């Protein structure tokens, strides 16, 4: 799937800044530009930059899945890490058995999805905090379960699987190849999810989130849509598990420990609930903050992370994704800022803003 990105993409000239977004140039140019930028990115980054980006991709996908069930459909799930862990275990086991990688990938998506479906069929009968408690059980029971099934999971010593070394002759370093895999697979998942939440299903999710009684009266079964959202979230979780193995190449019961599930929830809210871009920012937060606090003072990581989390939410209760809106509001409030409330970002003025036009299909959908 990453091959799509490997092929050279015709880059388009920067569109004029004024008619931004209305012209077909931008409609098609911006995504192509983005793809081009993503295709080049792994080649120019340092190894540690690529590693960091790849890990961001892994957890952005996991947060995206959580967003589907929680941000968009309003069902509190504290079990998302379980599906990541399951996907990672399926991948590791499949690779160790020497199965075809494509088959492994399919299984890493399907098995978590089936597990999620089964859980959802039961849990979606409940609502509110009850569903939170049932989903909390997944990582909490998952860890001892993974230890007990040591025949498949390697017990507490875990499973290693190095299957993502760059292919011979590709001329790529391992970290570049891995990042391509993450960008390719993760990109497709983000794209599909964005379509999903913009479309018919997304509207139904939003109505279920808003008011289940209204949904019922409109002929939308809250139960069925909750199950659907949960199953999709689990499937996406499975994909993130596969990507986890692509990047980390090792999994153990600790991968799915309860604390990480909470951290995913934090990442989702910090990024911005019910937002595609927020999922990405959540992934950034999940990965970059521990590295950042380690760089400041490794013996104070917990303190610094807590403080940073509170600071961000204090300034931006809507999450990082609301930063531009908050800035715009502030500018509008001052008379001088009037008119230039949100200056159009000139595309491709810097390499960074070429990617800034990323994923035009992603707007906030059904945010209550």
């Amino acid at each position, binding site marked *: 799937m990453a091959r799509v990105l490997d092929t050279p993409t015709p880059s388009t000239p920067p569109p004029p800044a004024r008619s931004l977004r209305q012209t077909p140039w931008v409609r098609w140019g911006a995504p192509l530009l983005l793809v081009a930028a993503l295709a080049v990115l792994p080649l120019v980054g340092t190894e540690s930059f690529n590693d960091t980006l790849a890990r961001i991709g892994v957890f952005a996908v996991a947060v995206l899945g959580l967003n589907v069930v*929680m941000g968009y459909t309003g069902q*509190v799930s504290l079990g998302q890490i379980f599906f990541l862990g399951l996907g990672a275990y399926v991948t590791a086991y499949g690779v160790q058995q020497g199965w075809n990688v494509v088959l492994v990938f399919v299984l890493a998506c399907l098995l978590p999805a089936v597990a999620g479906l089964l859980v959802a069929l*039961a*849990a979606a*009968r*409940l*609502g*509110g*905090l*009850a569903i*939170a*408690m*049932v989903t*909390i*059980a997944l990582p*909490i*029971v998952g860890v*001892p*379960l993974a*230890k*007990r099934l040591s025949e498949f999971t390697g017990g507490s010593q875990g499973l290693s699987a190095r299957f993502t070394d760059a292919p011979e002759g590709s001329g790529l370093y391992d970290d570049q190849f891995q990042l391509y895999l993450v960008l390719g697979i993760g990109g497709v998942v983000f794209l599909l999810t964005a379509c999903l939440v913009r479309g018919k299903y997304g509207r139904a999710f939003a109505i279920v989130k808003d*008011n289940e009684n209204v949904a019922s009266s409109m002929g939308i079964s809250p139960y069925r849509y909750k199950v659907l959202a949960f199953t999709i979230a689990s499937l996406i979780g499975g994909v993130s598990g596969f990507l986890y193995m692509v990047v980390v190449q090792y999994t153990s019961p600790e991968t799915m420990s*309860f604390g990480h599930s*909470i951290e995913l*929830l*934090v990442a989702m*809210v*910090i990024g911005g*609930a019910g937002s595609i871009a927020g999922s990405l920012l959540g992934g950034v937060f999940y990965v970059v903050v521990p590295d950042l606090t380690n760089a400041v003072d490794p*013996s*104070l*990581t*917990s*303190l*610094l*992370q*807590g*403080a940073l*989390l*509170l600071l961000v*939410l*204090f300034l931006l*209760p809507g*999450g990082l994704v609301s930063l531009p809106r908050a800035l715009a509001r502030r500018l509008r409030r001052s008379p001088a800022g009037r008119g230039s409330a949100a200056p159009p970002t000139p595309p491709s003025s810097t390499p960074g803003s070429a990617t800034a036009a990323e994923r035009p299909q992603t707007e906030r959908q059904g945010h209550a």
Partner: protein
Amino acid sequence: MEKFVQLVVDGLSTGSVYAALALAIVLVHSATGLINFAQGGLAVLAAYVAWVLTNQGLPVGLAIVAAILVSFVLGAVVERYLIRRFERGDPDTAVVVTIGLLTLVTGVAGWIWGYNNQQFPSLFPLDTVSLLGVSVSIRSLGTTAVIVVAMVLLQVLFVRTKIGLALRAVAINPQSAAFSGLPVGRLLMVGWGLAAALGAVAGTLVAPQLTLTPGMLDNALVYALAAVILGGLTSPVGVVVAAWIIGVLENLAAVYVGFIGFDLKVAVPFILIFVVLLVRPQGLFGRKTVVRV
């Protein structure tokens, strides 16, 4: 049979640890409609305060009282300057704020006192008494007694006192509570302060048993949350009974149900929650509440 009774008694004593924390969570929930993940963290902080004071030569009892007072103030301050900003907003965000607070408080404890295990002096002696052929430590009995007292006090507070009614009114609908002349802000601070004080009782009670570390109550938190949901969010009696049920059933399932064993016994409370909530969505003892829209 003797083993069975002993396992039940052991379960009750473990359940009391969960109950202590669960009571504080219920109090905050009743006062603010919020699940406070940081409750355990604040309780640990209180235990450290008491520990420092005992090291200064204060008797344990006095040190605990002082820690309770400090916690009351701390809880009120946290509500006023941190939580208040998120109370009207998205509930998910508010919960994440309490998670952030937990991380911060744990980090602060680790920063000041380190991660070494500290021995916390027990209020009750470790002696054992024999009841009906099973042995119980005075410490377990004492812990349980304190929790029962706290539970009764809370129940009375909620149901029989003006301030309890006011607290509940604020939680259910802050706006109309304000219209009817209640000092909503101050009540919320009192609610958090009381919860933190109760948490301090919990923390200092279980610290001798769990050994004082910054993450002392992390593992108990999940069980406490389970007890809170199982017992029904509104009932102090309910959560204490639920915590005991969880403690006892876990032990019995581990010993008598072969395939569960000691590794998967943690699944027991959650299966129980699931079954109970299917039948009674408001929990074992909870009242039906109006869904907030």
